[in-house]
């Protein structure tokens, strides 16, 4: 048993140290804000959700709220910029959602993707499916949001994340 531990653990650790890994930051927060609301003035309006608010969002969206802290910016002239994370295969995917003054999705941007694969969620055409969605939208994969073959986990978690943020807007920001 001890021999086996040496034979397997040591090579595994060596491989872990040698093989490449990727961490790609596509956009900073400021760049994402400018991409969604060019030239607009944004004011930080972070929210800490109460237990009741978390439960209400989870009930409305049917998506778990992982953290009570939500990073939010209010856009001068109307609208919201929300920074969020969802689970990727191995790490978190950081993304931003811009909401119009009426609470509909203006644009989403994938800002930080820490895995090599799954880039398709950044494709503009795929992200455009979310434009105009509200808390009343289905936001269901293979229904009103097309799945990306081979990136199902990322597609579904991002779709669920947007659904949760729209409920957050509806129940907290509105």
């Amino acid at each position, binding site marked *: *048993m001890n021999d*086996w531990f040496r*034979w*397997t*653990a040591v090579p*595994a650790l060596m*491989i*872990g140290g040698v*093989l*490449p*890994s*990727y961490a*790609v930051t596509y956009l900073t927060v400021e760049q994402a804000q400018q991409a969604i609301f060019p030239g607009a003035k944004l004011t930080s309006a972070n929210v800490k959700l109460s237990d009741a608010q978390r439960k209400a969002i989870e009930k409305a969206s049917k998506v*778990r709220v992982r953290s009570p802290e939500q990073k939010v910016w209010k856009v001068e002239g109307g609208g919201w910029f929300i920074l969020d994370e969802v*689970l990727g*295969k*191995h*790490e978190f995917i950081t993304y931003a959602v811009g909401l119009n003054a009426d609470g509909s999705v203006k644009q989403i941007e994938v800002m930080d993707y820490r*895995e*090599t*694969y*799954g*880039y*398709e969620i950044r494709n503009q055409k795929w992200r455009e499916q979310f434009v105009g969605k509200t808390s009343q939208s289905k936001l269901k*994969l*293979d229904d009103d949001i097309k*799945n*990306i*073959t*081979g*990136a*199902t*986990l*990322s597609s*579904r*978690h991002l779709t*669920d994340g947007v659904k949760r943020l729209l409920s957050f807007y509806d129940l907290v920001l509105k």
Partner: protein
Amino acid sequence: MLLGVCQTRADENLFGYTYTADVLPKGKWELEQWVTGRIGKESGTFFGSDLRTEIETGLTDRLQGSLYLNYNYFYIKNAQGSSGPIDDRNRFGVSGTSAEFKYQMLSAYKDSFGLALYLEPGYGTIEGSDGSRHQEIELEGKIILEKHWFEDSLVGTFNYTLEPEWAKGEGDHRFNVSLKMEGATGLACRFAKHWYGGLETRVQTEFADANLNKSSFVAAFVGPSLHYGRDRWWATLTVLPQVWGWPDSHGTGGLHLDDHERLEVRLKFGYNF
């Protein structure tokens, strides 16, 4: 800038023995290397090592195909199985080849559970339990069920396997048929970035002459599995001691050490390209 790359997270093995219903997307490739150590008979020294090199690809978005090359190393000295002695050996050899087809009917990421059908025809020339030369044709079929909870952080899977085998040992004049049946379960939890830890169970039995009234043995295994995954590669280690078997050296329940060993340890490594 990374538009030439696409996601092939599918078919990352969270378990050493139990399969999930994931498949590679069409046109994607994965290279896997398996090393399985089988250690300990009734007495003496028994070390059997099964090595498997596999190349797999997505034939369609639902159908995955693979080719395996299997080879073994045996070191056996003064070993006794449950029913008698095993010849001494110190030998490495290529034991055969097999193919695998896995068809995903439901995805655990989109549907309420995952479901896949699996078929593995194979040809072998080395008997795994004692390293002796023989000829074996096998056809392994599985039903694979998979269920996810907590945003895919907890993964459960169940495999039901039927495997008819036609084997002809040294001195045999004809192939003898047998039927293996196995139930395997796995439960793995993502406990940190990149890491899954879990538990696997296997219960295997074999019926001589493929007659369900002629059970040759039963062996049950339970043990932990550990998985580490990064962007392009992953590794999984499972340690699976036999916890119960029949018949033991007294012909009753205990540990069955003819067809199986006291301990199995499997390390898998996969690389996507």
